[in-house]
């Protein structure tokens, strides 16, 4: 995707072109959906959350200063929504079947012994999402932005407002932590 295309769409949206908003949603919906899905794990919550994020983006576009930075701004908005939703769900015991924020106790993953590959793949994906959802907020966000969203270290540093070196060191820790959580399944 070319950044100036996005900037052009944002400018068109500011000028009242609603179709530009639909195009922006189409450009980013898969990425934001994947982010929310991995963050809160639950599909329905992720759908609701994704819609919330785009509605907020539409309504608070006036706060975006540089049209070319729409992507980073949207990710910041998305992460704020994800954090708030995650906290609320956690407070209500939504994740009570997971060992949340407890890196010393890996989540017990069920052994996928089904002969059907599709089932196995889905099962594995759910296990990976569970493991990610149970990570600490910073580790989870860095890992998702890098390994799921494929953003550069510079972009992650700008979105999370942390130094570049910290992004790299925390990313390695996050990857190692996820490896531990998935060990039983991967070995």
């Amino acid at each position: 995707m070319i950044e100036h295309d996005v900037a052009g769409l944002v400018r068109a949206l500011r000028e009242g072109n609603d179709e530009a908003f639909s195009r922006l949603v189409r450009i980013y919906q898969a990425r934001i959906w994947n982010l929310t899905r991995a963050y809160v794990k639950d599909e329905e919550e992720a759908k609701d959350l994704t819609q919330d994020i785009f509605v907020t983006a539409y309504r608070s576009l006036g706060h975006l200063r540089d049209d070319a930075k729409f992507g980073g701004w949207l990710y910041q908005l998305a992460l704020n929504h994800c954090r708030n939703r995650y906290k609320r769900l956690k407070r209500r015991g939504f994740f009570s079947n997971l060992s949340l924020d407890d890196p010393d106790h890996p989540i017990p993953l069920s052994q996928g012994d089904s002969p059907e590959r599709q089932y196995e793949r889905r099962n594995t994906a759910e296990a990976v999402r569970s493991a990610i959802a149970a990570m600490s907020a910073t580790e989870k966000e860095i890992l998702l932005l890098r390994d799921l969203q494929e953003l550069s270290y510079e972009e992650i540093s700008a979105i999370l407002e942390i130094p570049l070196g910290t992004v790299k060191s925390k990313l390695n820790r996050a990857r190692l932590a996820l490896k531990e959580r998935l060990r039983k399944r991967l070995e």
Partner: protein
Amino acid sequence: MQDCTTHQSRFTAYLDRELPPLERDRLEAHLAACPACAREWRLFTLTLDQVAALRHDQPPSDLLPGIRARLARPTLWQRLRDLVRHPDFSLSLPAATATVVAAMAVGLFLKMGLQPQLPHQPAPSVPGPVAAHRPAPIAVADSGLAAMSHQDGAFFSHARAAHPPMAPELAPLHPDIFITVRATSPHDLSLLHDALAERQLAARPTGPHGLVLHLDPLDLPLLREALGDREAVVFPPESVIPGYPHPKKPLTVAIRLR
């Protein structure tokens, strides 16, 4: 001699080809000589593959229409502003009248020192549209204190039972927020209940036209979302404005469809 942990702390830099040549050679030599670290490296790359596989997950097809539908609805703030500008007395007056009459009845009981009516004996001044379905009598409280309760869609007074503890469904309610929603179809109550449930807001019916829920003030935006574009009157109106300093939590919200 570097230990295994040090080598593993460089996995990401190695993957990104950011290690200086000397360190890269050391790590590669270690991975060739140490089966444990070689296994960890394999698991490390497998983990990244598993995360990358999540990228193929496609969003639901109705995401954009859902966003459009939400944007088409006026925000609660806009609805409140409209209500202030164009008050709809046809909807709020009956609720206000019923509340005032009920409050007067309670005041009269307290002033005269009379035992309040039991739930199966409706207070004369308060109409009870579904009085026949009211629960069995509750033991009269020794304190004689009256409390307002919302049962079967009508407000009435009854005793605060001390012994034994009152059943949850009969416990007195003291709503902090009253919301009267204009009903447009017979399914409105269940639709509203579902909309609340979708947002993890557990509401329980108080009759054919009422719901009650307890929620954190921070969750008021969720309640606003659940109300959607329904026409509603909120009392006190300022209670749902973001930043309003609620004195307690959780809040009890009584919703009534009319």
